């Protein structure tokens, strides 16, 4: 007997629209902006204040001109453009007028391609380090080349000096190979001595001979011509690049069992961290020449780079020490159990993990260092902020505030924000769920 079914639905019903409260937009608003009376009030207040600010900003930006040659000029152009007498507008003329100076300082204009090329090549040089898994391994060779390329491009001079310095590493390698029959310690000593001798006495000869034969080189540029963002980037890149290895060594020294080495490292780190960067820059500008053997003359940018690097390395050491301390004890013991010696254990077991833990700290030091390069304006170098003082003291642009500082702030935000984004990317990439 077949069972009689009164009604059987043949097709599936479509989903009903969600109730109003959980509607996409309204639900989101209720959930996030108007979930209680105080929250509604504060939301509305914020919207009013924010709207007022944004409206002012929009009005200011909408009545802007790039054409003016001076602030008064700009004011009159804006008064013509303006709908009302009170409204002000943005005078971007200062950026058009002084933008080149803010970027390159007093670098000779026919050589602008050199810093541009140098900092463009920085990207492929960093790529194998920053995105190791996405770039061919061969590119690391270019990264190794870059530290010689950059100073040559920026400061100019003959190409034979950087080539001679590079050849020093070949000298090191071959003198180490040729002395293979000797005792290890003697080998190290001999090859180091030969290399140092090459750098100190061989390179000048190498340079003068080859320059006479083939004078290949760029027009030399003095350091005092450097300025603007180019100066900030130069100091920042050098300090960042040099402080990481130095910081690692200091951190290892601080963690070391050798009491004397530990004491020296702790003393250095705590002293540097205790004083403001400005005092170290004073040392660079007035004292470093007193500390060096009589007769040695360093140029000021080189001295500043040395001090900024020392400053950064102390902070770097503390961050890396944090990473080392966070590593479980078992990792050290496992490395010992495998019979690795100190440097092998550091290189293959400890450092890769410790550096990974310290990435956020390292990047925030990079950011802080890049921001701190502005302090060189205090000792009279013409970085962007040093230039603003000159621009604002000039009759044409006296009284300009927002456009100038806003532009500089924007440039810094672009660099530092991309650094912090990169750090977040790296943290995500290196994160393992255990």
């Amino acid at each position, binding site marked *: 007997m077949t069972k009689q079914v009164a009604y059987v639905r043949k097709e599936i019903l479509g989903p009903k629209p969600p109730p109003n409260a959980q509607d996409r937009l309204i639900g989101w608003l209720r959930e*996030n*902006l108007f*979930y209680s009376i105080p*929250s509604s009030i*504060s*939301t509305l207040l*914020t*919207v009013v204040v*924010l709207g007022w600010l944004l409206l002012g900003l929009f009005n200011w930006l909408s009545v802007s001109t790039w054409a003016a040659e001076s602030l008064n000029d700009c004011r009159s152009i804006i008064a013509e453009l303006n709908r009302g007498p009170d409204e002000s507008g943005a005078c971007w003329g200062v950026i058009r007028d002084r933008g080149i100076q803010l970027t390159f300082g007093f670098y000779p204009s026919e050589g602008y391609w050199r810093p541009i090329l140098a900092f463009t090549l920085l990207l492929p040089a960093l790529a194998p380090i920053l995105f190791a898994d996405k770039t061919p391994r061969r590119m690391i060779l270019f990264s190794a080349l870059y530290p010689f390329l950059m100073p040559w491009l920026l400061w100019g001079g003959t190409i034979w000096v950087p080539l001679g310095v590079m050849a020093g590493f070949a000298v090191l390698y071959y003198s180490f190979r040729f002395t293979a029959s000797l005792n290890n*310690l003697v080998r190290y000593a001999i090859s180091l001595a030969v290399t140092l001798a090459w750098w100190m006495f061989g390179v000048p000869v190498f340079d003068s001979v080859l320059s006479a034969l083939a004078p290949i080189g760029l027009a030399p540029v003095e350091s005092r011509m450097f300025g603007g963002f180019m100066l900030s980037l130069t100091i920042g890149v050098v300090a960042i690049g040099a402080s990481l290895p130095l910081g690692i060594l200091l951190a290892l020294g601080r963690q070391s*069992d*050798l*009491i*004397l*080495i530990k004491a*020296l490292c702790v003393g250095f780190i705590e*002293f540097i*961290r*205790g*004083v*403001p*960067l*400005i*005092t170290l820059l*004073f*040392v660079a500008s*007035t*004292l470093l*020449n*007193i*500390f*060096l*053997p*009589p007769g040695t003359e360093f140029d000021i940018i080189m001295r500043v780079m040395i001090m900024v690097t020392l400053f950064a390395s102390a902070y770097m050491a503390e961050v890396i020490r944090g990473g080392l301390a966070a590593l479980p004890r078992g990792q050290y013991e496992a490395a010992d159990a495998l019979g690795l010696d100190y440097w092998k254990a550091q290189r293959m077991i400890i450092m890769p993990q410790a550096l990974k833990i310290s990435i956020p700290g390292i990047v925030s030091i990079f*950011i802080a260092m890049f*921001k*701190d390069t*502005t*302090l060189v*304006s*205090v000792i009279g170098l013409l970085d962007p*902020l040093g230039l*603003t*003082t000159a621009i*604002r003291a000039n009759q044409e642009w006296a*009284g300009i*505030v927002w456009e100038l*500082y806003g532009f*500089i*702030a924007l440039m*810094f*935000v672009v660099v*530092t*924000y991309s650094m*912090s984004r990169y750090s977040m990317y790296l943290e995500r990439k290196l994160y393992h769920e255990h």
Partner: protein
Amino acid sequence: MTTPVAPPRRRFRLSQLIYDTRYRSYTIQVFALLMFLVFVLSLVNNTLQNLANAGKDLDFDFLFSTAGYEINQKLIYYGADSTHLRAAIVGLLNTLLVAFLGCILATIIGTLVGVLRLSKNWLISKLMGLYVEMFRNVPVLLWILLIMAVLTELLPSPREFRGEDATASMILNDTTAITNRGVYVPMPQFSRGVDQAVDHSLDLNLNAVLILFVLAASIYISHQIKLRADRIQRKTGLRPTIWYWQFGIIVLPLLILLYALGFHLGYPELKGFNFDGGLRFRNSMVALWLALSLYTAAFIGEIVRGGIMAISKGQSEAAEALGLRPARIMRLVILPQAMRVIIPPVISQYLSLTKNTSLAIAVGYMDITGTLGGITMNQTGRELESVLLLMLVYTIISLLVSAGMNLYNARVALVER
């Protein structure tokens, strides 16, 4: 069957100093010490030789000669006959003043930003995120110069306060004037005040000392009252109402003292081309103070947010289960634990704020870098001595702060079983 035999005792050979791990560490350390000594000796040697070549010597006597330059803000007496040492102390006090004010404002703003960034309100939390990113990603020197430029260029000059059709006016019931020459606020004055100390070498404002002393004494007594209430509560379970006692003990003696001293406010008045009377905060100080506070607040905000997020949800749920009310949960359960996480990094932010006050030199605020490391150094040509002293002062400050922090850490450290 083999029996373990002692390894043959070998004579100590020189190569063991390098290859034997038992001795190698000594070799390395002795080598490092030698290198360090050579480094220091050559440094000292170079310095002495260079100084001799320049016809100078290492001499701190310049500190006791007359400085003779003007300092625009001084908390203690400093006149035409004062020495460079006194100029340095005046500068140090200015450093400490702006650092102290900066720490207070940075803490207030930073806490607010950190708490609001955790707010459920999407708009407000995003706005606070924007604040943090904006201040963290731009150099602090730029903020100082920008605020200084805004203060000097965009604020009305004292002239604009004058006449019938004045374009600017004083605020807060005509007591405060914000001009491009500084902010003028009412100044506390005492008509029957205790006589000022005559000796300028230690001129304390006795009125202020008296007020501080009375305030400290009343706070101490009020704390004793609270302790007594705690004892009674522990014994009987009933807490006596004491808030009016505490309030009275703190407020009444202060009011009586202020009346006895003839306390009144001196208001700033427009005289000639400038404001007169009242307390003047120079633009350089306001710019430095605001910029350092806003900048440091961004970092403190992140620390506070991290500290609150570090407390697990179970803590507040457990406190709720005990029947505590939200305010008490915050005060008795969350905050004491969050503080343990928050305070050490906040103190290092205070330290970096203090060190950043050395940027004062960029806006002409006369802190110790401006006096000792600026004018004194240029006037006397004693670069080595000045910079060494400057570093010494900052090192002492930071050592004191880290000693304080270590004390605190030891006090709040979790007692683990």
